[in-house]
Every structure is written in C-alpha cells, then in structure tokens.
C-alpha cells in the first residue's frame, strides 16, 4: 500500500517536472523563432532548448519505467 502510494507520488512528481520543463521548452521555441525571423544569432538558445528537450525525454523515459513498475504491482 505504502509502496503503491510512493510509486504514485513519484509518477505525479515526474509529470509536474515534465510540465514545468515543457512550459520553458515552448517559451524557448517562441524565442528561437522570433530570433531566427529577425535575423539574430539563436545558437545559444538552441543549445539550451536541446538541453531542456533532452531533460524532458529522460523524464518521459523515467515516467514510462515507473508506469510499467506500477502496472506490475508491488514486489513480493
């Protein structure tokens, strides 16, 4: 029961982190598009966006792993 609750909490925290980073990823996409359209150098922002996207991808992987564990149920 406690293990289930812990798994659920972990899944919720992962979701919150994904959403948090997702917001900044969208903001960065808007910044990069604006810079590209206005002819400014957007290399640094692109690298930051890449980092954020990689972090989101890692979190998605962790979320999937956590969901699989949750579906399998607690270890006996």
């Amino acid at each position, binding site marked *: 029961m406690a293990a289930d609750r812990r798994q659920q909490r972990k899944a919720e925290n992962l*979701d*919150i982190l*994904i*959403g948090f980073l997702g*917001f900044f990823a969208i*903001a960065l996409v808007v910044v990069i598009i604006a810079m590209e359209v206005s002819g400014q150098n957007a290399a640094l922002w692109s690298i930051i966006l890449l980092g954020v996207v990689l972090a989101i991808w890692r979190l998605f992987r962790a979320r999937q792993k956590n969901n699989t564990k949750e579906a399998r149920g607690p270890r006996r």
Partner: protein
Amino acid sequence: MTQAAAPTATRPASTSPHRRNVSSRERWASVRTYVSAAVIVIWCLLPAYWMVLTAFREVAFTYDTAFWPTHVTLDNFRTAFATDTGNNLSLALFNSLIIGASVTLIALVVGVFAAYALSRIDFPFKFIILGFILGASMFPGVALITPLFQLFTDIGWIGTYQALIIPNISFVLPLTVYTLTAFFREMPWELEEAARIDGCTQGQAFRKVIMPLAAPAVFTTAILAFISSWNEFLIASQLSNDSTQPVTVAIASFTGSQPQQEPYTAVMAAGTIVTIPLVILVLILQKRIVEGLTAGAVK
C-alpha cells in the same frame, strides 16, 4: 487496626543529577528558541519600525538616527494626502483596493474550480498541466511588460483598470491553483462520496461539503493573492495613468516641496498608511490563515 504503610523511601526526582542535566538542557533549549525568535522578529520588524518612526518625524530631521520618536509631527501624513502637490494618495488607495479586490475575486473563483478539477477529476496529463502552471508562475514579469504595453496600446487599454487587473490575475492565478490543489488533494474523498450517497449532485457536494471545509485554505490563498496584487509595481508603473495608478506607483512618484528633493518622510507616511489595510486583514483572518497553512500537515 491497620496502620497506613510508611511511604517508601524514594529519592526526590529533582535532585537526581541526570534529571538536573535534562532540565537544564531543556531550559537552555527554550532560551535558545526565544532568543532566535526575538532575533527573527527584530530583523523583520526593524524596517517597519523605522518606516513608522520616520513617518512621524519633521522633514528637517529626516536623517536623524535616534531609535525613538523625536520631533514628532503629523505633517507628513497631510503631505501624503495633499492633492496640491500632486500626491493623490486617497485616489491611489481606492485604485489599489479595486484592483486587489477584483484580482483576488477572479483568481479565487477560477482557481477553486481549476484546483478542484486538478485534484479530484481523473484526466490524462493533469499533473503535466500542474507543472505547466508552476512554470508559468516562474516566468519573469519584466519580460511581459513590452508585449503587454504594445498590445494594450493597440486596443486602447493603457490607463484602464482592466489593463492592470488582467495581467495581475495571470501572476496570482498559478499561486492560487497550486496552493488550493495541494489542499484539495489532502481532503478525504469519503466526505464527498457520503454526500453523493445522501443524494447530493457533484455540484451540491462541492458547494455544501467541500467548500465549507476548504474555507481556511481559500482564506489563506485570498490573502496571499490580495497581498501579491496590492504590492505589484512593475506592470502598474507602465500600464497605469494618473487616474488609475495604484499606491505603489503613486508613492514612487511623490514630489517634495523643493525641486530635486526626495520626500522621504511623506513616502514613509504613505508606506505606513498602505501597510494598515494588510495588517487589519491579517489580524481579522489570523485564525483562518493559521488553519489554512497547517491544513493537511497532519493526517
């Protein structure tokens, strides 16, 4: 005839060296607690005390460093409210009250429903939405000033109440949703289920069972939202005009009796007046705030 048994020879506990050590340690712990609390209280209240002290000081003694009231006068309060020097504090107070009340009301109405949905209704990616809201709350306000100014100039909203209320709601709403979601999640589901079994619809259960129980958290959130809106300066300094400016902007644009003179004493008097509504609000709702802050801490 039986005689009462003689009391057993026990050594008084207070004389035990171990006990004496424990009680002395406890005494020191409580002294440490009180000293730390006193330091924190002094640290927090000293600027406020200095503000009140300067507010009651004559202009000629603005830079007096005495820690007690000297050269006391009420002229600074008169200057703060004097319209002939352009310091229209009463109008600014009224504006702040309208903006703060509107922001708090709208943010609470929207926030309560959003928080209830996020904590009680199962739909995919709801925690991702919560994370999104958290991200939005951390977005720097200064980055929004230029686009907001452009937008509101285009639609003719500069210097209107809605131009000050709508951006403020976007700053306060994430705080409201996040705080209330955390509270609703800790509330027992069984209460709502019991109301449903007794014949309530979901709306009635929300209105008659959940809302009265959530009152402390709602009050706490309302106060936090009001304080946040009351103290907002950045957006208001750009989007308001003389007739809609809130107190924060009005105080910043105070003028002295001489050119190039910064009217510190009048500013301090205005600061003291501005703090009063918040202090009254917190004192009236103190019990509710404490209940709201500790709600869900112990299950």
